[in-house]
């Protein structure tokens, strides 16, 4: 039987990697993928805890997180599309009309 905190550590690592991606990538879609990575890390953490506590609640939480992720994906990608319409790129660093 695998100790729960191994899963937690894995989750932490994935979360960190996701953050790193958000911070270092210019490609909007890649950034969003990194965010999905973070969310999955959260899922893993939740399920690990749920398993530890023998609770279904954590599972349900993940269930809803899936829905949230899906919704965000839909809207987010729509935003990227219209961004692309506007400036033929999804490099978020290009999007700096507004500053200061």
């Amino acid at each position, binding site marked *: 039987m*695998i*100790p729960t*905190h191994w899963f937690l550590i894995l989750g932490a690592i994935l979360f960190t*990697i996701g953050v790193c991606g958000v*911070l270092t990538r210019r*490609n909007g879609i890649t950034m969003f*993928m990194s965010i999905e*990575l973070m969310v999955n890390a959260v899922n893993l953490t939740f399920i690990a805890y749920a398993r530890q506590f023998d609770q279904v609640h954590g599972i349900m939480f993940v269930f809803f997180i*899936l829905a949230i992720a899906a919704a965000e994906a839909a809207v987010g990608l729509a935003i990227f599309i219209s961004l692309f319409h506007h400036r033929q790129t999804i490099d978020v660093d290009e999007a700096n009309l507004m500053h200061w």
Partner: protein
Amino acid sequence: MEFVIFFFFATVAVVFALVVVLHRNPVVGALSLVATFFSLAVMYVLLEVPFMAALQIIVYAGAIMVLFLFVIMLLNLQHVVEPHTRPIQQFLGYTTTAAFGIGLVYFIAKYGVFTALPASPFRADIRTIGFRLFEAYVFPFEMVSILLLAAIVGALVLSGRAVGSRAEIGTELSKQPGSEEIR
């Protein structure tokens, strides 16, 4: 046995996650993300939640990532090579995340450890989940519908073609503070 599986797929997950973050081509990124998701599904199996594993595959790998790939193809970005980011951002990103990760792992290893192993078997099968879903969680479940509806409407609204030709207006930006100011 399961230790082997765990470590193997943990490595896979981390490696492909790194690929997602590091590789310059979004397509590769997307595909390796799928790989990560798969290995996570395996983790769920190890955690005795096969239903979530299935959901992981179906929803994430199946739906969301396909959506990603679809968009990438639609905007045909597969050949676009992403330019380098500014070095400071790069540097700070890596260092801070490294620090954060190490700290996090350290804290979990130090304070997040559960001595007692979980009681098995874990009864989180589809039936249970289904019942809970429609008994205790009925309200949030219904509300998810609103969430998804909003998302759909939003997607429609946002990706709809811009009518009229006022694309140039937005570029008129607010003036920066001029010389003339009251002291």
